[in-house]
């Protein structure tokens, strides 16, 4: 059980990253982004593409420390982040911004994001097929912790990266002018405009950051398990459940929500088939909607 909890924290760290991304978008762009899961998938596959290119060129094939993957993948994080963030920004420019200008109702944004999600997924299916892919075929080294807990070294990496990113986002939002401006727009977009902050520009920032988070989350999940075109879609429920649990809008809430969701999903495997993980997320979300629709950290 303890072991499952630890695994839950690892999964939860990845979910938390995504939930923060969804929360930022929900609060600043003011929409539910149903393409978010597929952006994670996109990030993961871009990293796969780049690391495959490296291995074809025989470049950067050395293993990174005690981990299962090589330097090629480490470097591949960068294009994955940049391209996914870039795609998010382009979708915003081509699709969401025109809709906002037209004054479309909020639900339309969700619908259109669904369209983008399917287009992205279709592209990934076509380029890579429906089969599973792995970043590294090699054995995954383990480490043994007290209390009989076995951890893969990769999982330590995942935790460190995820938590470092969460800390970075937190610092960005509370210490950096641009981050504070993002919170200002989330608080009161009209007043932000009056203060000379361009909301459209802040939305571009948000899309960029959320896209970057999606890419990292996707790659980390790829390292933890394997890649397939449906991976992001299956993540969507836990992500939204975490964000709603943590009351959409609060970063701290998304973090805690992500951890709760990760732990609940892993611990549930003690009784349920692992394939039920998305259902567990759904059930938790239903319970939250039933008993605390404003989320745990809800302000009202």
């Amino acid at each position, binding site marked *: 059980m303890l072991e499952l909890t630890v695994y839950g924290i690892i999964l939860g760290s990845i979910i938390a990253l995504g939930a923060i991304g969804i929360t930022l978008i929900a609060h600043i762009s003011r929409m539910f982004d149903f393409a978010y899961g597929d952006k994670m998938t996109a990030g993961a596959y871009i990293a796969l593409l780049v690391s495959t290119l490296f291995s074809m060129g025989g470049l950067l094939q050395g293993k990174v420390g005690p981990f299962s993957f090589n330097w090629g993948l480490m470097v591949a994080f960068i294009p994955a982040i940049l391209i996914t963030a870039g795609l998010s920004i382009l979708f915003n420019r081509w699709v969401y911004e025109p809709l906002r200008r037209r004054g479309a109702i909020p*639900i339309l944004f969700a619908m*259109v994001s669904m369209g983008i999600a*399917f287009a992205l997924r279709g*592209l990934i*299916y*076509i380029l890579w097929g429906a089969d599973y892919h792995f970043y590294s075929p090699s054995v995954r080294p383990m480490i043994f912790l007290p209390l009989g807990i076995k951890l893969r070294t990769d999982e330590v990496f995942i935790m460190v990266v995820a938590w470092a990113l969460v800390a970075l986002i937190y610092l960005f939002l509370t210490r950096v002018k641009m981050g504070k401006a993002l919170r200002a727009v989330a608080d009161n977009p009209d007043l932000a405009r009056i203060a000379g902050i361009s909301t459209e520009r802040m939305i571009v920032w948000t899309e960029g950051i959320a896209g970057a988070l999606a890419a990292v989350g996707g790659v980390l999940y790829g390292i933890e398990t394997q890649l397939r075109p449906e991976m992001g879609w299956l993540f969507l429920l836990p992500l939204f459940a975490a964000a709603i649990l943590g009351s959409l809008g609060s970063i701290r809430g998304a973090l805690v929500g992500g951890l709760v969701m990760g732990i609940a999903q892993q611990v549930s495997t003690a009784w349920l088939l692992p394939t039920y993980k998305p259902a567990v997320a759904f059930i938790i979300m239903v319970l939250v909607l039933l008993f605390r*629709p404003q989320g745990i950290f809800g302000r009202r």
Partner: protein
Amino acid sequence: MGIDIGGILSFLASFAIMAAIYAIFSMGLNVQWGYTGLVNFGIAGFFCIGAYTSALVTTPLPTGVLADYVDQAIGLNQPFLVGVLAAAITSGLWAALIGLLTLRLRADYLAISTIGLAETLRLFFNNEPWLANGPEGLVGLPKPLYGLVPPQYYNYLYLAIVLAFLALIYIAIERGIRSPWGRVLRAMREDEVMTSANGKNVFLFKLQSLVVGAMIMGIGGALYAHYSAAVQPSLFTPMFGTFIIWAMLSLGGTGNNKGAILGGFVVWAIWSWSTFLIRNVVPAGFQTRAPYIRYILIGLLLVIIMLRRPKGLIGEERQVSRF
């Protein structure tokens, strides 16, 4: 001259059956989204409930050798119409449950909850073989009025049955929408507070709309199941079960039942035409991946409609109330 008229006709009949079933789904969504503004991203869930309910209600429990291979918890061996009715009712009950949970909250919560329901059901039928035989699903669903015509003509008969349902549902919805009931739905779509200030219980009407739409989807599910005579969890994917229907309604005309039907036929034509094209044009090595071109096609189609022609091909009429 090798034109096989019979072949073409039979191809057209099977095309029309599927298109008409999808037109039914599209009309169900039109009640929810087109007239009421409710976002159901889990049509696949109601599709699934409808199909499985009718399957479990109309098939007998497996006996003999079959019982060694097929697990099935329920098997009521009832006629087709009972199965369709049961499908509608069960589907409506699930919709009511989801509605009670989410309809008082922000609109997007319904969207995410219906996705959740659809995915959970798919997992459930996949992983609980005792209920409906797990991933293999159920086969041998009874075909209504089978034996009335020679088997090679059966598709025409089933097409007639589906079209009869389509017509009945069309008339029922049209009557509802053009009546004061529909007027309240359309008022809520625009301004819930104002509708409430006119003395209408907004929550109850939204619930009704969700349930009526889901019942129609349940019927669609049952019609599909009896057409293919088989149900499997893998059918009810987000694309095939939900998203394509959104594309149909959006293309045809949100808020217009004729549009909903038109969209069903047009998008299904695009879908099956591209299947045909892929099978015959794409090189063999690429055959397994090529069908996903349709994901991109349908995804982009929806985005473009929303950006360029949000009303669809036939938009809503100006004066809808007409009774």
